[in-house]
């Protein structure tokens, strides 16, 4: 059974269609790149999967269920914004996650934080933007979730931090789980991906295994993306 399934999914903001009749299935054990230019509908799709938005038409299923309390136990979500309260310190945040998520592995999180030299007494407000994003990613990847939804995980950080983030993703996800990474920094994430979904103006243009792009088309994902989304 697909861990993420969209059936004729549409989301309209007034008269603007952010997603229009999307059909998509993501299988467990796959790392999928959700790729598209700004405003293509990537974040809307991820928000719908998290139950932060309600579909206008169609439906979205997580492990066969519509988004709700039960699906939130399966999904580990990294939004593009920092959602941690500034006054909290790392220890309080770890306790918060441990309290609410049964699949949160505190020891794993503590080990990653220690590796980065982030003390548990440090408050969020004392951290740089990059450090906050790393802490947030560590929290998200320390869950034993069935589906990881990562919205622009490397969008606002320097290249060295990008490497750390990508290594954290690849080193910590459960091979039985699926990972969806939304980004437009394709060259950086390309080595991780099993499949890519190209999305534009709320439509899925392509859902293809990365091997097929490389072997049959003889191109990199980055090159194909630039070709298909070329601005004239």
């Amino acid at each position, binding site marked *: 059974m697909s861990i993420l399934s969209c059936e004729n999914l549409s989301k309209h903001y007034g008269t603007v269609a952010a997603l229009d009749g999307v059909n998509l299935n993501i299988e467990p054990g796959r790392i999928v790149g959700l790729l598209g230019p700004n405003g293509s509908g990537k974040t809307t799709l991820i928000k719908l999967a998290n*139950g*932060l*938005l309600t579909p206008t038409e169609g439906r979205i299923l997580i492990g066969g269920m519509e988004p709700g309390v039960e699906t939130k136990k399966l999904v580990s*979500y990294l939004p593009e914004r920092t*959602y*941690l*309260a500034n006054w909290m310190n790392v220890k309080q945040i770890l306790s918060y996650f441990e*309290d609410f998520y049964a699949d949160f592995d505190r020891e794993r999180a503590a080990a990653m934080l220690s590796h980065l030299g982030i003390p548990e007494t440090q408050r969020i407000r004392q951290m740089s933007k990059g450090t906050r994003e790393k802490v947030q990613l560590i929290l998200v990847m320390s869950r034993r979730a069935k589906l990881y939804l990562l919205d622009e995980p490397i969008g606002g950080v320097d290249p060295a931090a990008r490497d750390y983030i990508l290594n954290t993703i690849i080193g910590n996800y459960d091979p039985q789980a699926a990972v969806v990474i939304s980004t437009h920094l394709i060259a950086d994430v390309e080595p991780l991906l099993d499949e890519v979904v190209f999305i534009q103006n709320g439509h899925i243009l392509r859902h293809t295994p990365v091997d097929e792009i490389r072997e049959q088309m003889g191109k990199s994902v980055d090159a194909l993306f630039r070709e298909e989304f070329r601005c004239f």
Partner: protein
Amino acid sequence: MFLKLVKHELHETARMLLPVFGGLLLFAAMARAMIWVMEQNDHVVLAFMGTLFISLFVFACIACVILTAILMMVRFTKSVHGDEGYLTHTLPVGVHSILLSRLLITVLSLAAALGVTYLAIRLCTWNVEAMEDFNMIFTSGFEYLGLDSGFLWRVVASVFVSLVTTVLLIFAAISIGHSFNRGKVGFSILFYFAMNTIASVISTLLALVFSSSFLDSETAELSTFSQQSFLLSLCINLIFCGVYYFLTWIMTKKRLNLS
């Protein structure tokens, strides 16, 4: 999960409000000391400073309740409709649990602010002769009007239900206001005043209908009027509570608009 939400909300609220409450009680103790100094000395400068200090204390009492209300509204906005909402709404808890935990802690915080303000006033006026006379006049007046302890409980219940209604009205206004893409705070304030005005008009109309029908009846008595008007006000507030809660829930569930 609801209790976990309450625990974390209580922790966050205590962090914000305990310094405010502690500061007010400290202010009250200082005001009482100033009154004592004024009682012991008859100097005009001390009298002026004492009066100024006590005026500031009265202002601080009012500010404590208002500040608590503002902090709780900001807390609701940030944690439910702001960036923190990304975490709040992806926790494995239902929308009802999120809203009810916020409602419970907000009402408790406002009740605590009123309680602390009362304590501060008692502390400031402790052993002050003029206040003892005032208490006596108040108690005598209560007895003279023939008001029993049941009346007092009805007043407490009315205040509590009104508090819940007001909090839910503000929650609903914030939730509707934040469904807009721009001017979220402005729309929240606009909807607060609009809904408050509609509620006031409806309440006034119902009160007029009730009063006229009561006065027309042949067996009109003050105690019956007091009891029935209390019940009417309670019913109206409970209906408004239901409406405001539904609006907050539906806007949060179906029209959540995180940035």
